[in-house]
């Protein structure tokens, strides 16, 4: 059974690229153009899949069936479907905020998580906050669609503190990038 399509993976990368590149750069323009591309009806098959996202309990993972949307300091908060690490929400930061003195990594791994309030899937960027010792609070390790290092953008074990002053891992955030369908 195919769970995850390559369109979605490509879109994730391009959204991430577009969101972290200078607006004036050619790369950004190209990225934005390509991010928009999935919105155009390219293939009948793609349209058919996009039109019928199966959000029945039978189609949801164990995590999605039990996820909640009220407490972002708990491991079953819906955006944490593929997070691995200490929740920044428990470390003085927030769902998209690094604790004081730490620095968000500009790149990340990603997950596609279902919001229980509306049944829609959203692309989540799990950006590590870096430059302080590991925050030993609220350790979670959720694994929906989490793969191995040869597919790094879907791997939650890698220390993603690239492009930061320090590569020391502090905690992880779950930044909402946008709808995934």
């Amino acid at each position, binding site marked *: *059974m*195919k769970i995850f399509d390559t369109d979605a993976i490509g879109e994730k990368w391009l959204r991430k690229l577009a969101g972290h590149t200078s607006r004036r750069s050619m790369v950004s323009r190209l990225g934005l153009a390509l991010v928009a591309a999935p919105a155009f009806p390219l293939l009948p098959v793609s349209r058919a899949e996009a039109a019928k996202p199966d959000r029945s309990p039978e189609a949801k993972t164990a995590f999605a069936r039990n996820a909640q949307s009220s407490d972002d300091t708990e491991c079953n908060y819906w955006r944490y479907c593929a997070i691995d690490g200490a929740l920044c929400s428990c470390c003085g930061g927030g769902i998209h905020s690094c604790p004081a003195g730490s620095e968000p990594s500009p790149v990340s791994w990603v997950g596609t998580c279902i919001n229980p309030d509306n049944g829609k899937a959203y692309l989540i960027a799990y950006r590590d906050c870096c430059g302080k010792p590991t925050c030993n609070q609220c350790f979670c390790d959720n694994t929906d669609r989490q793969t191995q290092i*040869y597919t790094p953008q879907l791997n939650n074990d*890698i220390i993603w503190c690239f492009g930061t002053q320090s*590569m020391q891992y502090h905690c992880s955030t779950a930044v909402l990038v946008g709808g995934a369908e």
Partner: protein
Amino acid sequence: MKSFSIWQRGMVAALAVGVAAIGFPAQATDPHGLEPEESDIVTIETPKPDWFYVRAGWGIDGTAIYDGRSGKMIGIVNSSQLSDMAIDPAGRFYYVSESIWSKGNRGARQDMVTVYDSKTLKLLTEITIPDRILVDERKQNFILSDDGKWGYVYSFSPASAVNVVDLTKRKFVQAIELPGCAALIPNPGVGFSALCSDGTMATVAAPTGKAEITHSAPFFAASDDPIFENFAYDPAKNMAVFLTYTGLVYTAKMGAAPTISQPYSLQEAAGYAPATTKPLSVGWYPGSRQPTAYHAASGELFILMHMGEYWSHKAFGDEIWVLDVASRKVVRRIALKEPAAHIEVSQGADPLIFLNDEKSAGLILDAKTGEEKHRIEMAGAGVISAAPGL
């Protein structure tokens, strides 16, 4: 009355001991036969077939060596956090691929392969490399050639590459870009191979020279049913054994163009229906941090299994399933009292299983009977390696 400070009292006590030592030279006159002693340093043996190497775990330095037969610690190899260790096939050295910073948690980053003498565990030298991946719990990010002359260190910066290290001259040779691939596989006489996100296996021939990269045809679903990276390699058969999240077993005969078998279901090999990727399909699945261990002489694969649904691939194992890879049968099942996060098996004739969890509880079992041999508190919570079949 003027009172002495603690420091002053300490000094007086130390001087008193010194004066006593001068006034009364060491004599073997103690009625209990206790002799004066001097400090010395132990020298250990080269790796033995029953030895295990256990990383301390997340955020902690060190790799402990245990004799699986006695359950006793032999020593500790210096290894920094997020490091990887490889053992010289001839048993002379321990190599640690690691990253440190000039000011502890900041400053200039330094990546290196550090070389330790296997008998003294003393630092011999450091081989500077340009970069390496920072990740825990993996065995396939640092491998050696079968003759021990070359080291291959996986790098992710976040571009994928492999650093080639000459372990004889103790020099970095070159970095080979390997986009979309990771999880290094030994490939004697050729170079090395790796698994890729497009479902292929990449093979890098002549990695110390031209480094020509070829790919197999796609054979596994890298996003939908990935192969666990902590896979097994059989040096005698020159064969890799892979396991996917659903329990599909592949073997690959390594070579310039590796031959990859058609997969079979681990669950079917145990008399169950094959596992699926569908939600709400509860069954036995492989999982944990280090889910497989392979005993080369018997061709048996030891797999940590748990009951669950798909995408539960990090769940700790409640049972060990022993798969005869060639006959495609699960020949034994060992129920565990406590779930295990890592599994390794020694390579001797009477193999032992080493298990641990994330609280560092270590457990040694007889691999044939499952009989408990030793429990080790604070054994280490990280990935486990076995001494090569020397």
